[in-house]
């Protein structure tokens, strides 16, 4: 009897749980209903997504989520960050655990077409590089024949590494670890001659070395790693919000609209600025937001250039040059699609 009661109770609770959660709807609507945005972020990568001891998040990817929160709620803090390991990130997005994944993830064709994901905005153009100790006297990745190389397992990095050494007919010893922390620790402890990951990651990790000046980043970039913000495939409205959040920040930079002068700029006669800040046209409403959506983004977060400088650029500890991420007018690849 008791067993029967227990099993009935179990079935009852199980069915209740299922019943309680069965409500699928458009992401924007569900975010508005919840009152906050869940953002998949890195477990800790300086410049991109890093929590401090109080749980305050900073970084380029983090500010992208803040920009979305600002556009939706007029408040950049209505976010819950879910730190995700490399291997969990896509399942977390697929399963609906996070609404948007801003976690320095490379977009590739297979990820775009086979995982049920979309990558509407590339917010950082990156590539895989190597870091070595200065005292080895190595100045090019081509000289790494026979070296031990620390890498994180289960990433494209690991595959690119194998391809690169095979293509250049060089030998190497791979030492793979499960997390980026363990990988870098092993390199710092002298287990490997070189450490490889995305170049941005190299600059970020170098800060954590016992003595950052002992290490240099080699000039070779052995792969293309466009780091993009990902959403679930099929919710086009939500994808549009991500795409245009990014483009609003790019356009703002190009037009010279900054966090500081955005209120001033509201009175500008420039039609492009007028469209951007919502005093002309109804662009925001078309994606389910208010027309001053871009104004909110810039007011609360700033334009792309500001965010870049603050988190990874010269104004940060990482001191990464704009390079590929400069505006197209300055020889970079960041090209804001016109709002009209």
């Amino acid at each position, binding site marked *: 009897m008791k067993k029967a009661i*227990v099993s009935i109770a179990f079935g009852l609770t199980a069915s209740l749980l*299922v019943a*309680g*959660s069965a409500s699928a709807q458009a992401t924007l609507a569900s975010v508005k209903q919840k009152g906050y945005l869940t953002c998949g972020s890195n477990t800790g990568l300086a410049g991109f997504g890093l929590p401090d001891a109080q749980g305050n998040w900073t970084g380029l990817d983090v500010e992208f989520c803040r920009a979305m929160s600002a556009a939706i709620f007029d408040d950049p803090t209505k976010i819950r960050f*879910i730190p995700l390991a490399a*291997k*969990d990130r896509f399942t977390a997005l697929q399963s609906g*655990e996070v609404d948007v994944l801003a976690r320095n993830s490379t977009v590739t064709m297979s990820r775009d077409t086979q995982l049920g994901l979309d990558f509407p905005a590339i917010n950082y153009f990156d590539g895989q590089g190597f870091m070595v100790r200065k005292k080895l006297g190595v100045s090019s990745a081509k000289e790494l024949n026979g070296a031990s190389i620390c890498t994180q397992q289960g990433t494209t990095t690991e595959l690119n590494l194998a391809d690169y050494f095979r293509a250049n007919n060089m030998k190497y010893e791979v030492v793979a670890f499960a*997390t980026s922390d363990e990988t870098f*620790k092993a390199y710092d402890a002298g287990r490997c001659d070189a450490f490889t990951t995305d170049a941005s990651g190299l600059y970020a990790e170098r800060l954590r070395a016992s003595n950052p000046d002992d290490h240099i980043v080699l000039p070779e970039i052995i792969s293309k790693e466009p780091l993009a913000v990902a959403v679930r495939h099929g919710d086009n409205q939500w994808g549009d919000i991500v795409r245009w959040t990014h483009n609003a920040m790019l356009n703002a930079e190009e037009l010279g609209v900054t966090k500081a002068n955005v209120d001033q700029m509201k009175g500008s006669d420039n039609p492009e600025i007028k469209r951007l800040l919502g005093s002309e046209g109804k662009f925001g409403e078309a994606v389910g937001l208010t027309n001053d959506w871009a104004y909110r983004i810039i007011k609360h977060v700033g334009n792309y250039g500001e965010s870049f400088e603050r988190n990874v650029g010269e104004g940060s500890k990482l001191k990464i040059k704009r390079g590929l991420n400069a505006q197209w007018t300055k020889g970079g690849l960041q090209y804001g699609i016109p709002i009209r």
Partner: protein
Amino acid sequence: MNTAVDMSRFVRSENIEALPPPNLARGPVAWVRENLFSGPVNTLLTLAVIYLLYILIPPIVDFLFVNAVWTGTDRAACRAETAGHPVGACWAFVIEKINFFTYGSYPAAERWRVNIFFALLALGVGWLLWLKAPRRDLGAIYFFWLFPVLSYILLTGGNVSLGLGFWIKFAVASAVFLAVLAAAAYALKTSMRSAVLIGGGIVAVIGITLALVNVDWGLRPVPSAFWGGILVTLLVATVGIVFSLPFGILLALGRRSKLPILRLASVIFIEFVRGVPLITVLIMANTMLPLFLPADMTVDRLARPLIGVAFFASAYMAEVVRGGLQAMPKGQYEGAMSLGLNYPQMMVFIILPQALRIVIPGIVNTFIGLFKDTSLVSVVGIFDLVKTIEASRIDPNWAAPTISYTGYAFAALFYFIFCFGMSRYSLGVERRLATGQKR
């Protein structure tokens, strides 16, 4: 006469003080001789051990105490070249990070809630482990129901906002459940009253639990992603024990059952779980659980390893409990049956109280294993104590050669105190039970 006088000089008029026994038969020297230098082999062994200790102990003492650094705010204090003296353990690092090691990233303003959780846990554990504590039955209710509910509210903030629709569904489901029970009681011609009481009790407990976590207590919600350190370590261990004991008992009863399918199911579950490493169970919980659930249902990141650990511990607990059941003399079963008790009554009132009592040492030992195994959740990315130390030791502010050793020494001390304490407790209980059985 003269001779007689002379003779009398040799006769003692009183006893002289007895000589002490030979010096070597007792006292420290004799003890040393007996126990350390009783033969050439023994002497060699002793000397070898002394040499080993001479090599090992002074550096350890130097590292932990003599050369240790107790104060400082960054790595300068713990690097030999800046501190100007050899540096052992850098306790300043632990002191500065102690809040992170204890609470993880739990918001500083809300940490009093975690402290209350620690206190509630200590109360529950103390109540259950102290064999002469008053009302241990209430203690069990507290530990297995009230404490988990309170902890959930305290740590997450409660206020899950279930909504009116949910309550309507719940009411309907409860009514159906009660009706089914009543119908079963009617068909079986058993007492309607007890059936309704049991059913009503179950519904009430579930309802009260849901109502409690539903109420807005005014606590700020703290997502589990912020929890960390000792909080998570103790949480994983607690969930493991709260879940594994009842579930382990059910599994053990299933394995001892006469019903073949039930027995087979229990055996398969137990042997399967015991045959694989915990880490694979954790990875499975992490990667496969979301796959097995409906698409729009997600499980909290922290809850996944908790489920894995709970299942894992249950299988081991089941084997311990089975040992207790097997040790029960057959007369106990027969006596219970001859009193006309049915199976649940026999188990609940006669067998289990005795069987569980004799396996308390086994249960505690399983719990020690579970407590140590909680460190494995760090491998699947949960911020337990080990993971917070791993994360802290690469902090460039504290980059110094001995930081890693210091962090590990701190964690080792933490685990050792808990595990050693528990093992002493279980030894004590074992001795008490042994004297009980001698009578």
